[in-house]
C-alpha cells in the first residue's frame, strides 16, 4: 500500500454539518444574528411558530451552549450572537473528529506496513 493511499473526501474538506440539531433553534439563532441586541419579544414576532416561553427556553439552550450572549437592559434581556467562543468550541469538536479519522488512516497504514514487514521477515 502506498503512503499517499488515503483519499480525502469533499465532506472532510468542507467539514460539513456543524449544525445545530433543532430547526427552531437554528431559526432563532438566525434572527438573533440578523438583528442587534434583540429582545425575546422581537424574536417571538419573527418566529411565530413557537410561543414566547418556548423562545425563552430555546434562548437559554443557545446561551448555555455559548452561541448567544445576553445583557440586561432595564426590564429586558437583549441577545446577540457570541461568535467567537461558540465558533472555537465547534471548531475544536470538528477538529477532533477530523484528527480521529486521520488517526484511523495512519493506524491503517501502520497495520499494513507491519503486515508487509512481517511477510518480509518470514520469507
Amino acid at each position, binding site marked *: 500500500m502506498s503512503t499517499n493511499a488515503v483519499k*480525502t473526501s469533499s465532506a472532510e474538506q468542507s467539514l460539513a454539518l456543524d*449544525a*445545530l440539531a433543532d430547526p427552531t433553534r437554528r431559526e432563532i439563532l438566525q434572527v438573533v444574528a440578523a438583528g442587534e441586541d434583540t429582545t425575546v419579544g422581537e424574536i417571538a414576532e419573527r418566529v411565530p411558530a413557537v410561543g414566547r416561553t418556548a423562545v425563552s427556553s430555546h434562548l437559554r439552550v443557545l446561551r448555555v451552549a455559548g452561541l448567544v450572549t445576553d445583557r440586561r437592559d432595564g426590564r429586558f434581556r437583549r441577545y446577540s450572537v457570541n461568535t467567537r467562543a461558540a465558533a472555537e468550541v465547534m471548531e475544536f469538536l470538528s477538529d477532533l*473528529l477530523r484528527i480521529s*479519522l486521520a488517526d484511523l488512516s495512519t*493506524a491503517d497504514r501502520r497495520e499494513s506496513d507491519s503486515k508487509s514487514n512481517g511477510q518480509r521477515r518470514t520469507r
Partner: protein
Amino acid sequence: MGSVVLADDQVIDAPPSEVFGLFGRSRERGWLFGATCDEVRPGSVIRLLIPMGNRFGGEVLEGTGRIVAVEPNRRIVLNQETPWRGTLTCTIRPEGKAQSRVRVVAEVPEDALAWLLRRGGGDATDPGDPEAWPVGLLVSQSGPASVFAGASVELARLAIDEVNADGRVAGRYLRLEVGDDGTDPKRGAAELRRLVERCDCRVVITNVISSTFSAIARIAERAGVLLIYSPVNEGGPCGQGLFRFGERPLNQLRGSIPRLMRATGGRRWYLAGNNYCWPKTTNRSARRIIERSGGTVVGTRYEALGRRQFEPLLEDIAQSGAELIVSTFIGGDEVEFERQCYEYGLRDRCQTIALALDEATRDHVGDAAGAGLWSPFGYFEQLATSANRQFIERYRSRVGPCAPPVSSLSESVYEAVHLHALAARKAHSWEPDAVGRALEGGVFDGPRGRVAVRDPSMVDQGMFLARSVVGGLKVHDQIA
C-alpha cells in the same frame, strides 16, 4: 435538553472488515478519540485519549465511555461518559472494491458544550431557575479520578428529582449545579468559587479526592458554605460547615486485613498508592492493623498521580517477597497499576486489597487483571436488598442499560443530597448553619441500608468486602 450534532467522513484505503478490526486496539492514539478496549461488544468499557488543543489547555485528556451497539464491519455506537457526555456513532460502508467510507457523527449535549466553554476560559454558567435552591456538586469529570465519577452527576439528579417530587423543602425546589475539579486542587478551588459566586450555591457536595477537598475546605468555610465530602476519605478537619460522610480507612481495613490473611495464609504486605494525603493516612492505619494481626509490612511506595509506568514499583514488590498488597491508587492510576501487576505476573503470588476499587474502576481493570482483587466499601451495586434493587432500577430506567455502574463513591452523592434535604426540611431553613445543625443526628434509610450522621466527622454505616469475579465485584462478606 438540547444538543449539537457534528459529522465528518473520510475514505480509507482498506475494506470495512480491516477498518473495523482496528477499533479499540491502539494503546497510543488510534481512531475514534484513541479508543481502547478489551472486547468490542455492547457494554464493554472504553478508554479515550482526547487531545484538547491549545485553546483548551493543550493537554491530552483521558476519557471514559462504553460501547452501546456493534454491528461487525458496519457500525459502532459509543456512549462517552467523561470528560464530557455524548454519543459517537461510526458507520463503515464499502467504497469501490477495496476502500471504505468511514463516517463519524458526534452528538454533544448542551452541558458538555458549557463544560468545553468553561475549559476554554469562557463563562458558561446557566443562571437557572431563580426560584429553585441551587445545590452544588463538585466532581472529577476529567483527570485520573474521572474513572469513578461517571454516575455521580446522574445520581445527584435522581436524588434531587426525588426530593422535589415530595414537594418544596423550606419553601424551595432544588436544582443541581455541577463543577469539575479535573482531579486538580487548583481547578477545584476555581470551580468551587464559580459554584458559590456565579451559581449562588450555599451547599456543595463533593465527590473528589482529598487533596482537592483540603484545597476547597477553607474557601467554603470563609464563604459560609456548607460543604459535604461524600465518598471514602481519611478524616481530618470537620465542623464549621464541613461534613465528612464517607468510609474511613480504619473501617475498611479492620475487617478485611485479618480476613485476607486467614484466607490466603499470607503475612507479608506491600503498601502502594498515589502520592497524596489519603493514601498516606490510610497506610498508617493499614500498618497498625497488619502488625496487630501478626503480619509485617515489607515495603511502602507512592507514585505521583497520573504516573502510568509502574515497572520499578512492580520490581520492588516482586523483590520484597510480598504476598499481599494494600493498593491506594485511584481511578485511572488504579486501573493501570492492576493491569500492569497482572501482566507482570504478580497475581500468581499476591492478592490485593484495593481501597478505591469501585465498580467503575473494576470495569476498566477487566476480568483477567481483576482476579485476586478485594474491595471493602459501605456499598456495592450488587447489594441484595430490596431498597437497593429498586434504587438501581430507578437509575437504570433513567440512564439506560449501558450507563456507568453505581458504586459507593457515586452512591454517596445520592445519599448526601437526601440527607441534607432531610436536614433542611427539619430545620425549615436553607441557611447553612441551620442545615448543618439539623444534619447532626440525621438518618437516611437508603440503598446501603441505614446511614446515621453521628457528627460532622462521621457517618455510621455497614461495611462489606467484595471480591473481583468475572463480570464485576461480588459481595463476599459483611465486615462491619
